[in-house]
């Protein structure tokens, strides 16, 4: 078995892994290695051929592959090692990585620091328990996206999309552009789950109906999907009798959420937050296992890749320092807590040595509110939406003013604030 020693090993070569590797290298880590199972770098962005990436970072509207390529080019200009078509099978708490590829066989990689950047997977039909048969023609939206954008095949010609997540909205437009008919997008919530921009550009512009507070209650067909029955739901998401309607279609796409891929992390003993389904991290993006860091969609599901890059640079920087042994000692630990109408906050814990950026999501939509950052900062917001991640920065100086060692993040109505 081939044995390799590196300073920083990055698992996953998507935007998170690329940014982390670059930052670790700039920080001075000598041997940085990216391990990626696909045939090329770029992660899921390679199949996101629509535009709308990089508005924040590059002040330009790029496609997914274009955005990825900017980082891939930067990596190429360095001496960062890249192993492609290589799958990581195991990470130990001692930071030994077992990875396999057809050229080298099994590799045992010992790393001073590890960055987890494995991304996420899509929630499946089984997780939803949609009743009915199990014919061909049911795909998660990302799988369909890959079939169309990478492989060049169109799964079917009449589609219903369950879930109004961004990937589903994007695929509604893609199917239409490919010549297929999208009969409906069906969403259980009273509002669209994806970005408003995508609702407008992908549904409204193409006259695709969006049915809110509705769901698919049955899939018809034995060999191939022949149709679905949809119905309106009550406040508890139970179908309302009498509102059922059958729609004929040969394809059902599911866009019902993403789940961070943390099987490797759990194996390594990394503690997982049951709300984000990602690791619990401090503001250096270090997990509960010393020397193992996490960033990107493996940490929590992002809707903008620009945020992924930012967060991952932080992880890479600290991983680099950890490998070099130059990590600052931590004077004080502050726990971060989700308060009123906050579903989760990342990072989960902060020290007060450097400015820190918090990413969070709300539980439900609310207008005219104030985001209260542990009493240290108060930011007025016209509206907050679960689909739109909030971010806020705190400086060490501001953190000094915190009483106690818990920082509560909360949303309060403007009139109470």
């Amino acid at each position, binding site marked *: 078995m081939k044995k390799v020693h590196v300073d920083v090993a990055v698992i996953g070569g998507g935007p998170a892994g690329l940014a982390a590797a670059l930052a670790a290298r700039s920080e001075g880590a000598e041997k940085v290695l990216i391990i990626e199972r696909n045939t090329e770098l770029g992660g899921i962005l390679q199949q996101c051929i629509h535009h709308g990436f990089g508005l924040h970072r590059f002040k330009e509207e790029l496609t997914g592959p274009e955005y990825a390529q900017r980082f891939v080019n930067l990596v190429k200009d360095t001496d960062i090692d890249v192993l492609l078509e290589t799958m990581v099978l195991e990470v130990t708490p001692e930071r030994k990585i077992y990875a396999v590829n057809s050229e080298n066989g099994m590799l045992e990689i010992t790393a001073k620091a590890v960055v987890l950047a494995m991304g996420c997977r899509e929630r499946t039909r089984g997780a939803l328990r949609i009743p009915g048969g199990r014919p061909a023609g049911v795909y998660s939206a990302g*799988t369909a996206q890959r079939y169309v954008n990478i*492989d060049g095949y169109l799964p079917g010609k009449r589609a219903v999309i369950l879930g109004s997540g961004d990937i589903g909205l994007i695929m509604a437009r893609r199917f239409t552009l490919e010549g297929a008919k999208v009969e409906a997008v069906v969403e259980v919530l009273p509002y669209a789950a994806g970005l408003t921009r995508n609702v407008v550009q992908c549904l409204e512009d193409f006259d695709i109906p969006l049915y809110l507070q509705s769901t698919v209650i049955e899939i018809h067909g034995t*060999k191939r999907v022949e149709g679905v029955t949809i119905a309106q739901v009550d406040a508890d998401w139970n179908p309302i009798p009498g509102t059922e309607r059958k729609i004929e279609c040969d394809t059902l796409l599911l866009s019902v959420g993403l789940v961070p891929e943390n099987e490797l992390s759990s194996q390594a003993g990394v503690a997982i937050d049951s709300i984000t389904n990602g690791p619990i991290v401090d503001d250096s993006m270090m997990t509960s296992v010393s020397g193992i860091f996490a960033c990107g969609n493996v940490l929590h599901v992002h809707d903008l890749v620009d945020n992924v890059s930012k967060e991952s640079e932080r992880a890479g920087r600290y991983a680099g320092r950890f490998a070099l042994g130059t990590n600052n000692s931590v004077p004080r630990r502050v726990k971060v807590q989700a308060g009123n109408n906050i579903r989760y906050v990342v990072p989960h814990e902060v020290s007060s040595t450097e400015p820190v950026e918090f990413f969070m999501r709300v539980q439900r939509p609310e207008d005219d509110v104030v985001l209260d950052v542990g009493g240290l900062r108060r930011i007025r917001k016209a509206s907050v939406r679960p689909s739109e991640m909030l971010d806020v920065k705190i400086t060490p100086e501001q953190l000094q003013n915190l009483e106690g060692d818990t920082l509560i993040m909360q949303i309060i109505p403007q009139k109470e604030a």
Partner: protein
Amino acid sequence: MDKAKKSTITAQVVIVGGGIIGTAVARELSRYELDVLLIEAEAEVGWGTTKANSGIVHGGFHEEPGTLKAKYCFSGNQMYPKLCEELDVCFEQNGIMMVARTPHEMETVRLYYKRGKERGVNVQLFSQEEVARQEPNLDPKIVGALFAPEGGAVMPFELAAALMENAIQNGVKYKMNTTVIDAWREGDKKYLETPEQIIRADYVVNAAGLFSDDLARMFGDDYFSIRPRKGEEYIFDLSVKDFVKSTIFPVPGKISKGILVIPTAAGNLMMGPTGDNVEEKEDLGTSQDGFNRVFEGAKRLVPSLDARKIIAQFAGVRAASDRGDFIVELSPNVPGLLHLAGIESPGLTAAPAIAADVPGLLEEAGLQLEEKQSFNPRRAGVVRFNSLSREEQDALVKKNPSFGRIICRCESITEGEIVDAIHRGARTLDGIKFRVRAGAGRCQGGFCQPLITQILSRELDIPVTAVTKAGPGSEQVRYVAKELYDEEVR
């Protein structure tokens, strides 16, 4: 096609149906110098009830004394370890526990204990403390249990595929995607009509599962019928695999064994099945109501089960006979026709024992049996990358690089294993999923389906648009991108 236009082929013994029963019979008959043909309607064997059940190798203490179920279940159980060893099929002998929630139920458990003892089943009685020690996640209210350590779990589809592979290796012929649409007798000969051909046989084994009464009726045998009874099952993610060690049964109700919590041979935990009489033999839908009943039942055994960990669901239909027992007998009306019908639960367990009786029954009907010297009970071993040590994996990849390419990332299944499955007979995405479990994990094929579609297309040398989930009509992707814009012009 018109009957008259169809060509006629002949075979000494024709087995109709490639479920666990048909494939076990095929392998059993391949021990003899015979010309055997198996006919299966689906694209691959094992796609009937055999692929959709609980996968439990029952202990043999449940069944009423004096029934064929009792006879074949216990002897089938005893044959499993050797059979699975010969065929290199997973058999987890993890035991079966029937638990009592009240002292009153414990009385019933004692009756099953007595029944098992009398039959020769290895059974033990557990106190409340012993139950809690062995299965700490069970409801603490459980007062005691019966434990049968020789019960276990298999992957039924894997077993059926392995039986078929071994039968073929020993000379059995087969036709897949071939439905028997009519059948009749002329003198000693039996005729089976398929959409393409007519097959003339000396002996016919009816192993058509849910449709065994229909096949019997084609021959004029209408003295039994099948009453389909559906069972829904729900599968959990591997992350909760260690919740229970053995299959947990409640005290059974009148017609079914109740809702169970099952550690499957694949490692996932499963709960089910329901038992509902249905009109349609092919009613494989799952339902919210079914889920509610299963979840409620399972939580009575293991209260901490979390519905959010469910990754898949399915339903299977039991082919219960109107006799309430298995039908294993020569037709009283058609000489040389053997019915293996009404093989509902515990049919999977019973299959090897039923099959072992088939040569004798056919001999009774006049078939001459001569043992085949060249019979080989073993099939070529299967590589399971996941179960090898890191060193073994390393060595394997160096020998064959395709084992270094992981295709299914949830279950770590390699391209080598998928190609091997295709060479052993897999033709479809479901066939691969059931054989090597690629796509059976938590992402349910989201990542690997497109890759497996490509591999099937390459290995079978068919267009990507001809790759199916489960046979003709279930094409995975229907069109080449932009094809819908193409228009015929003159």
